[in-house]
């Protein structure tokens, strides 16, 4: 049984410069506990796709089934409740500057009605889990990019999510920090059996983190399957092009050293 299922998602944006079809009938399904990757170049529709899952963007057509419940049929209040169990991690972390690390992690718990004392206790546990317990009283400006992303991950964990969405979560980080964040996400997935959908343009993220991958191009999934299969024997032009980008980067890196 699929844990998360997207059925024929369509989304068109009406802009001043004409209509932009971001999604043209995207379907995929994710099993419980799986890390599912979506890769594509910029403009492929990745961000729109991930926002359709927790309905930050409402698809024009199609359904999102989470544990067989249709997300698109929920009322606003039900949807907000459901969103508390769907964590989202962003490229630029989106922490609150005016609050310290601990208060950033506490805020969503307090909104969900947990007492301040309990929220603090739990927040410290989650900060411990991401290795930042010693920074609880620091402000975001005092942290590095990787540390900020760890705070964002702790904030998501505090919602006890059953699903985590990563929108280019490592794209603003250097290669080494990317490695540690990917490792942390993997650990969380193993330990808590949390399903993840990972959106990225970096092949490395898919290779190191994901079980299955879908290649998105111009609003359509052009190829999908196990990561090893898609990357070793790409069928679509888009997947081949992504591989080529990576090979070029490898060669350039080789000559640089």
């Amino acid at each position, binding site marked *: 049984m699929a844990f998360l299922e997207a059925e024929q998602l369509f989304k068109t944006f009406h802009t001043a410069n004409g209509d932009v079809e971001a999604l043209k009938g995207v379907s995929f399904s994710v099993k419980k506990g799986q890390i599912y990757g979506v890769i594509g170049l910029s403009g492929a529709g990745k961000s729109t796709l991930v926002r359709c899952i*927790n309905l*930050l963007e409402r698809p024009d057509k199609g359904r999102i089934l989470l544990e067989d419940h249709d997300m698109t049929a929920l009322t606003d209040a039900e949807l907000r409740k459901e969103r508390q169990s769907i964590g989202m991690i962003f490229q630029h972390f989106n922490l609150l500057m*005016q609050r310290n690390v601990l208060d950033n992690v506490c805020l969503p718990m307090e*909104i969900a009605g947990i007492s301040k004392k309990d929220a603090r206790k739990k927040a410290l546990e989650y900060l411990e889990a991401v290795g930042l317990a010693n920074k609880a009283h620091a402000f*975001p*400006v005092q*942290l590095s990019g990787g540390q900020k992303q760890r705070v964002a991950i702790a904030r998501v964990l505090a919602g006890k999510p059953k699903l985590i969405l990563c929108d280019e979560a490592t794209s603003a980080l250097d290669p080494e920090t990317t490695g540690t964040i990917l490792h942390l996400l993997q650990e969380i997935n193993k330990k808590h059996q949390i399903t993840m959908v990972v959106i990225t343009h970096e092949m490395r993220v898919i290779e190191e983190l994901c079980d299955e991958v879908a290649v998105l191009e111009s609003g359509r999934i052009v190829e999908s399957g196990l990561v090893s299969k898609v990357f070793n024997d790409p069928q679509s032009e888009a997947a081949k092009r992504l591989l080529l980008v990576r090979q070029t980067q490898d060669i350039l890196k080789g000559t640089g050293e």
Partner: protein
Amino acid sequence: MQMEILAQYFPLFQEAAVLTVKLGLAGIALALLIGVICAAVQHFQVPVLRRIAAIYVEVSRNTPLLVQLFFIYYGLPKIGIPTNPYLCGVVGLAFLGGSYMAEAFRSGLEAVPVIQTESAESLGMNRAQTMRYIIFPQALSVSVPALIANIIFLLKETSVFSAVSIMDLMFTAKDLIGMHYNTTESLFLLVIFYLMILLPVSIAGSILERRLRYAGFGA
């Protein structure tokens, strides 16, 4: 400059300063209120009201306070609304300041990126919670420098109140000069009293700005 004249004038200026500060603060408080309302109306694109707010902002910003005061002072009684100098001063200052405050609040609201709203919604917050915990605090810290600049500007603008016979600092100085020709002493006290009012505001403002660390988002 004669010391005994300074000592003799001092209480008069003191009285005028209290009046200036009182009227100034009342006008600024009203201006802040008008500003919040106009900024909200424009930010949330409330139909009709946003057009009225936009027209008000342009009229208010592009006419001098002196003209606005004359309009209120001489114009309103003609259409049957009684007015007195103090009310006229406060309303005039609020009318002028409202638009500046509105623009300050609006620039703050616009400076908060959309992704902050998305982030809040992804954590399960509703619209009101998103405004209260996420958007408003960040918008305010962006607005603070402009708001403080506006407060200082409005306090200085009170110096035209004398034109509608309010006995503020400027009026007192002009009056004393007219009566005794002690120009140096009067003007000296005038400058000193304005500094005594405005310097603390400026200093408190810069401390507040530093504390708010308004420099960045999405960190």
